[in-house]
């Protein structure tokens, strides 16, 4: 994980995103587009934990996708660990993601035909120069043990509860020791108690590895566990607050 004392891990400048207005079926003309995000500026330092909250349709997931390099903005720039990701092609962005970013999704997004252990190993298998297969396996097992799923290593996602699946997803997100973790509604599909457990694991690992955390959620309790909370409404930041950490 490369760190520069002054260089933020994530810098967003004047970010905007338009999409075609499908209702009118004319998605070519500029005046028939829908603006999802308007002039978003954001600076996140190494080790920060940031929650982006807002109602449904406010553009939270769109912003997360742009920041993670999963999508390309209509306007503005995104710098990830000093690199302008808009100047990278799709494969270079993918390589950067593999190196720097971990993901946790609302719908877990585990590969159904892979066991829990294999799902956790996946990011390491996709990277080049990340060590031997045995090393990857060992790291994955350690993380699964860390999230309390040692006995479920060889179980498939269909054999795990929602909470267990999300814990596997968290282990997968952290196995490559990413500099930055993006979590999109990580407790959206979980009950309160399970969600709490999952979040506890996530913040514990976050502290242990010093990962920068960017969380998209409409759960204000979860949001308040982050150091900063940014509220998005109608594609713009309307407020920001500093709250406690973890």
């Amino acid at each position: 994980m490369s760190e520069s004392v002054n260089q933020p891990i994530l810098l967003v400048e004047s970010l905007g995103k338009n999409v075609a207005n499908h209702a009118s079926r004319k998605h070519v003309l500029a005046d028939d587009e829908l603006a999802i995000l308007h002039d978003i500026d954001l600076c996140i330092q190494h080790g920060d934990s940031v929650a982006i909250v807002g109602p449904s349709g406010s553009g939270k997931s769109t912003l997360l996708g742009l920041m993670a390099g999963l999508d390309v903005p209509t306007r503005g720039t995104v710098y990830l660990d000093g690199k302008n990701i808009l100047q990278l092609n799709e494969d270079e962005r993918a390589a950067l993601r593999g190196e720097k970013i971990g993901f946790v999704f609302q719908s877990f997004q585990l590969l159904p035909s892979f066991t829990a252990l294999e799902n956790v190993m996946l990011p390491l298998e996709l990277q080049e120069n990340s060590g031997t297969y045995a090393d990857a396996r060992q790291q994955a097992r350690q993380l699964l043990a860390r999230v309390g799923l040692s006995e479920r290593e060889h179980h498939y996602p269909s054999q795990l509860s929602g909470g267990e699946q999300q814990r596997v997803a968290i282990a997968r997100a952290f196995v490559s020791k990413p500099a930055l973790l993006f979590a999109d509604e990580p407790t959206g599909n979980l009950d309160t108690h399970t969600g709490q457990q999952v979040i506890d694991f996530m913040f514990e690992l976050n502290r242990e590895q010093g990962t920068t955390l960017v969380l998209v959620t409409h759960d204000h309790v979860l949001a308040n566990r982050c150091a900063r909370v940014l509220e998005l409404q109608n594609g713009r930041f309307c407020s920001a607050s500093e709250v406690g950490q973890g």
Partner: protein
Amino acid sequence: MAFSQGLLSQSIWRLSLRMLGRDWRAGELRVLLMAIIIAVACVTSVGFFTDRIQQALNHQSGELLGADLRVAADHPLPAQVTVSAANYGLRSTETRSFRSMVQAVGENEVNGSSRDGEAILGQSRLAEIKAVGPDYPLRGALKIAPARFAKDSVVHDLPPSGEVWAGPQLLQQLGAKVGDQLQLGYSQLRIAAVLTYEPDRSGSMFSIAPRLLINLSDLSATGLIQEGSHVHYRFLLSGEPKAIADYRQALIPHLQRGENIEGTQDARPEVRSAMQRAQQFLGLAAVVAVMLACVAIAMAARRYAQRHLDTCAMLRCFGASQHRINHIFLLQLIVLSFLAGPLGILSGFLAQEGLVVLLGQLIITELPAPSWTPVWIGLLVALGGVLGFALPPVLQLRDVPALRVLRRVATQSVITPRLQPATLLAYFFGLVMLVLLVIYQAGDVVLGGILLSGLLLATLLLWAAATFLTWGLKYFLHYLRKGFLKKVSQSKFSAWHLGLINLTRNRRASTLQVMAFGVGLMVLLLLTIVRGDLLQGWAKGLSEDAPNRFIINIQSQQLAEVRNFFAQKGMADVELFPMVRGRLTEINGVSVSEQEYVDSRAKGLVAREFNLSWARKLQTDNHVVQGHWWKENAGGKNPFPREFSVEEGIAKTLSLKLGDQLTYLISGESFTATVSSLRSVKWDSFRANFFVLTPPGMLDAYPASYITSFFLPAEKNEVLDELVHAFPNLTVIDITAIMDQVKMIIERVSMAVEFVFLFTLVAGLLVMTAAIQSTLDVRLHENAVLRALGARRRRLWQSLAVEFFSLGALAGLLAAFFASVLGFVIAHQVLEMDYLFNPWLWVLGLLGGGVGVGLAGIIGTRQVVNSPPLVVLRKL
């Protein structure tokens, strides 16, 4: 050891194989695998079969000839041919083959109630007699057995003088056994053994009679070789390759008309021709199955890719490049093709045994093991099918946006938005594979091109017809909804409505399935019902008293006695026709030779001797189409003009026209006359007819034999036995038996083609299965919602039955329509007869298609009705 980049990296292999194994366990790849196996199996089944014949021709050609070189003629070979062999240090022998009647002789001729101490003679049968000289065969060996069904063994001797070796079929037909006596011409010979194998014997397709082997020294005593006898004279040679080549080189310039040389490279042209036809017909049938299998591969791969969209998005999230995505799936496809290929090859090898049972004995008596060529072809087909048809949709997975993990962005259409160069290249590769396969099976680029055009045209016609049917169904349904259905059921969810709506909703898939099944059903209907109709129609076209026996080899000095014999048997109206053998040597004063003609039939007509005859009046089954029939002049030395009347078919083949002067060499003398008329002949009247006729008196000076044909009722069969006993040199040909043999050959060949087309039906089933799978999620969801809303399972089963029965019925309609059209075309254009459309064709097509596809479809979609709705809704 660090991971390394690229296709060969261990991590990619591990990931790829793991995904392959898990997908296989989940049932994701079964249709894909089966489609590859079917494509490979049908190509290799035909490939192994034709390859075995080719191996026999290539490596056993010496044995197929019974020698290293064979000189054959339709007349006794000149001394120059036979004597000079010794000068080259070659071993030689000769054989003479002809057909003649053989009669069983009763055991007890001393006590028997015979007249004048003669033997009691049993049934007579036509046999293929081969008289062989010392040292025969020069290559390979004969096999004999002590009795029918006893174990045979190789023998290096020949039947001694006075004894014969008879084929098992002959013994069965005569009701004779080893040790019995046979009457052959004027000789009685003892059956010493059962002849089970001759190295140079043709398959049963090429011979009309069972076999009898005699010693050449016994031939003259039989008195069977007379004027007009059709005898194949063969001179066999073996020795060092150089000596053989030198002898052949020296002989070629001296070969006369009617003589030819066969070496090991060009041995058995009839077998080569049959093999080529088998490869073309069966190979084409296999190509149709391969095409359908490739459609199933493409559909299954498309679904496979669709179900891996989320996986690819996830892999992209975690850093996989587009190349890595491609590599992961490309490796899976390559491994799959190398798994499915050998399985398909093994299946093809087992299946070709079916073809051997059906056709093998027809073409050649013993087939060796195949070479490796069909194996490589099978692997190429597997690879080509996978890379050409499975790879394109899978290649497009590289375009799956990583953003999909956050939301589904136009996800359903991501598989087909734009064609990358790599995708286009893959499709091109697949099409090239199919084109090359057609050319390979056709054995000729031009023929392959014609066949490809035909296939394309047939595909377009089928597609148009299938589209018309599915469109028609849509409008039919529209009117049903407005009328009948409204009265029958108020509910929009009636089984009929649901079933037919499903069919018309995805018209493209329905059209494809109707085509896929329609092709297989059409061919099966053509080969069973239509074939039967055509054969029956042809048989019915023959009059009931059409001649069923031919008698040949009646010598001129036997004429009066033979006429008397028939008169005594109440068959005085049997007409005897003269036959003079002559060879066409000149047309309009210019020498003719085989080399001038390209058509193989023309070459044969020029090479062999013609059967000339004379007639005063035109027979009722002959009609003059050009020119005039000769008129008798009242006075004059020659009441008839010196003219020829030529059959129009050979006139066309040899490019003869009215006014041409033809010269024939008859018994060493030239005979010239002018073509004054061309005749059409109804050959299937089975009456004695001739290509070339002269007026009476023209050929009196030349030696002639006589032939006749007549109808013999079954209850009078013993007349022939008496005739052969009285005139042992006569040959009786049972036309009914020949027609039965022809029917048997047609039946076997049809069954062989049907056998290969079974692969087409299976491929059609795979197309349907792939189509069902592609809509499975939608069906599951729909039916779960319907059941949650109160629909009963019975109604859902009924709607599925309606949908698939209708699909099958549409395919059956298509099949029946095209089978009828083809039957009509064949009847009118080829067989020149009327064709009555058979209503059963339509009934069987509709029912067969409906029930077959209906059952298969219900079985394939049973999960849709059986899955608990809550489980489905939660999962989806």
